[in-house]
């Protein structure tokens, strides 16, 4: 592993982010990354965060048109409320803060505590819970679906909405709409290795794969013998379409888990598109790359978001972050 010691991985990365990105303010000690020009007067602010190891999520999405602040936790460990409160205080212009929370027990509990503390400090806080992973049963008697690839859609689209000047409750309801319209399915071709453990989280012999994995190196729902990209695309897309029947053209994220070469991801995108064409689901926009990762895990996920005119406009709106950047 390209690290010093496991204990300093997150702090080291934050120093590196600070060195590479003068357009960000990085508090290495307190683990908060905010856009340099925060708070932006009159603008609703977006704050997200979660365990590290999913880069570029979230710090790579801080900037105009997307997040105002991010709080990275330890690897695969939700950040603590103190970070979230500090980030909220740093970015709030008075127009309020939206917390974008991936649905994991740790993230939910810590952001809940943070929201209470922030409100005590007079910051208006709303929360949106991202839970898009169809591999996980969603019921009151479970932890609910995990938040994975859709987080990128929520942060981009709600970020654009906030940049347009929408008030907090509209940004919040837009974010919820994106969550409602988004679903994902992930596949692992290898485990990942966390710095703390130093060896793969689970054993996956070459030639086998795990279907329905999350982004924390946890095993999936089912192990299978090797499949072709075409077969994997069918399983992933159909799993998503079982849960989401798009009435409109979709936004498509073909996401790499970190260890899968872009060459393979693009090839996979061709197969995903083939399946979507066969299922008569039109694709409005496609993003291919390693965006919501699981350290060095080989594998991929497919996220669809049913777009509409407003969401397309927000998707195309300018964004200027380390990892996502387009428009003026």
């Amino acid at each position, binding site marked *: 592993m390209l690290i010093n010691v496991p204990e300093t991985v997150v702090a080291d990365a934050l120093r590196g982010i600070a060195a590479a990105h003068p357009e960000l303010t990085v508090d290495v000690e307190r683990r908060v990354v905010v856009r340099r020009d925060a708070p932006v007067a009159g603008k609703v602010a977006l704050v997200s965060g979660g365990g590290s190891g999913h880069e570029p999520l979230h710090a790579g999405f801080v900037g105009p048109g997307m997040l105002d602040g991010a709080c990275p936790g330890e690897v695969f460990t939700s950040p603590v409320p103190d970070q979230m409160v500090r980030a909220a205080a740093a970015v709030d212009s008075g127009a309020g803060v939206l917390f974008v929370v991936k649905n994991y*027990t*740790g993230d939910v509990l*810590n952001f809940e505590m943070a929201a209470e503390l922030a409100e005590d400090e007079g910051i208006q806080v709303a929360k949106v819970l991202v839970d898009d992973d169809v591999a996980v049963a969603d019921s009151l008697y479970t932890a609910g679906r995990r938040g994975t690839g859709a987080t990128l859609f929520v942060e981009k689209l709600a970020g654009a909405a906030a940049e347009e000047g929408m008030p907090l409750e509209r940004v919040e309801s837009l974010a919820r709409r994106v969550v409602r319209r988004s679903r994902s399915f992930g596949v692992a071709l290898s485990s990942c290795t966390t710095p*703390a453990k130093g060896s793969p989280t689970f054993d996956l012999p070459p030639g086998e794969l795990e279907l329905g994995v999350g982004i924390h190196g946890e095993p999936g729902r089912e192990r299978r013998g090797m499949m072709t990209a075409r077969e994997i695309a069918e399983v992933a897309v159909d799993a998503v379409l079982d849960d989401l029947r798009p009435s409109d053209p979709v936004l498509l994220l073909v996401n790499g888990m970190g260890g899968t070469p872009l060459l393979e991801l693009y090839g996979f995108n061709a197969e995903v598109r083939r399946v979507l064409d066969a299922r008569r689901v039109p694709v409005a926009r496609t993003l291919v790359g390693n965006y919501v990762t699981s350290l060095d895990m080989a594998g991929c996920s497919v996220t669809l978001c049913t777009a509409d005119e407003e969401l397309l406009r927000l998707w195309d709106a300018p964004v200027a972050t380390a990892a996502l950047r387009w428009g003026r």
Partner: protein
Amino acid sequence: MSGTYGAGFAARWMAATAEAVEREAGRLTELDAAIGDADHGANLRRGFAAVADALAKEPPATPGAVLVTAGRLLISTVGGASGPLYGTLLRRAGKALGEAGEVTRTELADALAAGVAAVGQLGGAVAGDKTMLDALEPAVAGLRESFAAARAAARDGALATVPLRARKGRAAYLGERSVGHEDPGAASSALLFDALEEVAAG
């Protein structure tokens, strides 16, 4: 043997827990690797090291204050699911102990019961969901009897999670595949009561 227990005792409990967690961090992480995300050992080590440090530097005056401080620090340093849950357990228990300078074992059990209830409320889990509650609940019941009974009950409770199918926490994502593994949070809860018995035994 039914004495009373003061701030020093509570602080020694936390220090002994920190040592146990330090010693067992690898095992906790391995358990978490099997059905979670391989960080439980590192999480608790970071948290309890901070707790032991802080208590050594500025020892609070009452057992309640010790537990409240420990809980707050866990919340501020652990993160993940276990940070808020363990933090709430100790903070709520500490609050329940109030200002008393010395407390009985039964008072400690009552306080911890309040803490356990708060954990249930916060995380939405119930006994049998394959979480730390499966060790904590029997441990607190055992504590009404003795420290040794608490320790034994916690261990049994932790081991009893092996055949369960997880319904809360990260292991729930595995469905049937979570069966056959000990819950890491239940295993660490057992360490808490190991430490309590050891400190009480002197």
